């Protein structure tokens, strides 16, 4: 069943031996389906991601992008099909991943308290915590805001804190679900710079967005998702220059997809 699944562009995008030296790559999905309450949200998706760059899942609202991300992170289980991170199952791989959601779930504590919580949960020795928190606040441009209640920060600061919290233990993979959906342009720039910095430090980025301009700015490769189907997966330059899928071409041209 799985082997018979029609392969999309995605599967042919890169040959298996080009995988970077990354413990969780390649990320391979075969024949993914996900349905809930009688609705099928992900329809027969297969892909192969070998590069440790910034993979952007692009598509209109309701395409199934967030569900795809959660399937990859193991917060949802596929109805059928399989996902592997390198040699690891999704559950095993999650220990080396972190996720920040569209509406960041910040604890009702200070910014420092939010970072400390992760370190405590993960069993980081007490004497190392302080320096790690300071470094994370610094990287996110939140110096001096450590004692502020997390939920009283501005939208951009909250999202940066959520990403800093996700990255405080230097995960191998960072999953971001529409990280800038509700932010103004200045805040978007701050978040994107942080994402670049995290990627530059060696963390694989897998993020969703419906914002074409953001995908252009950030993506090294693009997965175009529409109505639960993966229609195209290509290096960013190639995708934006000459999208092969007609729906992707229309989406890039600013048309509304049904």
């Amino acid at each position: 069943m799985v082997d018979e699944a029609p392969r999309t562009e995605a599967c042919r995008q890169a040959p298996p031996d080009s995988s970077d030296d990354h413990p969780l790559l390649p990320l391979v999905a075969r024949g993914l389906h996900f349905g809930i309450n009688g609705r099928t949200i992900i329809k027969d998706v297969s892909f192969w991601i070998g590069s440790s760059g910034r993979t952007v899942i692009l598509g209109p609202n309701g395409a199934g992008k967030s569900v795809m991300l959660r399937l990859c992170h193991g917060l949802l289980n596929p109805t059928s099909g399989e996902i592997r991170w390198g040699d690891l199952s999704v559950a095993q791989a999650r220990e080396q991943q972190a996720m920040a959601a569209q509406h960041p779930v910040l604890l009702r504590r200070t910014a420092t308290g939010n970072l400390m919580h992760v370190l405590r949960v993960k069993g980081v020795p007490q004497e190392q915590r302080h320096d790690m928190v300071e470094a994370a606040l610094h990287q996110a441009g939140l110096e001096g805001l450590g004692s502020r209640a997390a939920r009283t920060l501005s939208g951009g600061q909250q999202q940066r804190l959520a990403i800093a919290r996700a990255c405080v233990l230097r995960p191998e993979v960072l999953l971001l679900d529409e990280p800038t959906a509700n932010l103004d342009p200045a805040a978007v720039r701050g978040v994107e710079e942080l994402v670049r910095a995290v990627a530059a430090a060696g963390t694989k980025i897998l993020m969703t967005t419906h914002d074409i301009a953001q995908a252009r700015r950030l993506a090294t490769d693009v997965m175009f998702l529409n109505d639960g189907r993966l229609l195209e997966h290509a290096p960013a330059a190639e995708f934006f220059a000459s999208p092969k899928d007609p729906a992707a071409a229309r989406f890039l041209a600013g048309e509304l997809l049904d």
Partner: protein
Amino acid sequence: MQGGWSRKRGRFLRMNEFSSAIVAALSMIVTLDEGLVEIVLLSLQVSLGAVTIASVIALPLGAVIALQSFPGRRGVVILLNALMGLPPVVVGLVVYLLLSRAGPLGPMGLLFTPAAMIIAQSIIVLPIIAALSRQTIADLHEEYDEHLRSLGCTPMQSVATLLWDGRFRLLTAIMAGFGRAIAEVGAVIIVGGNIQHATRVMTTTIALETSKGNLALALGLGLILVTLALGVNATALVISDAARRRYG
């Protein structure tokens, strides 16, 4: 109304009686009248004891019902919420039957002691604290669940996170329980017996002294009771409001 109040002289006397009772009540409070203090202290002892016992049971119970799915959970939640309206008199009656000489717990000899009053008030307060804390923890859990799972929290770590982040709202739940306990009269008068120097609390004393016509003591205790009840509620509001502004 007509009869008692119709004659000018009678009304004057009664008004006079009333105002002198207030003066006497205030002077009892100011001078810390021994009898009054004894009653207030026993009231606090009984209600704080009841709230402590109820909290120890109700907070974990609320957390378990909020986080653990099991068959019939909806029914349990509905029952718990309904039990918040448990009539104290009925609780008093049931505890009385359990503790009375012929009852199953009769040999313990607890009837007409402060311990019996603590038991009765614990039963009244327990569903209030359990239902409110369940709601608090369930709401928080719905919001935090994905993050906690993404982090790979153990169940213990999840519960600790939820309890800590819900601490102010849980405190409010406990204070709501205390407000109910301290103002309750129906249960303690049945199982305590309103015995002088033994089981006489503010509410039962007010009931007794009013019927005896000793308005000064009743009014004095009434003033203290109102102040306590309003104070506890106001404090609960101030705490939760401050916490919301501080932590969002």
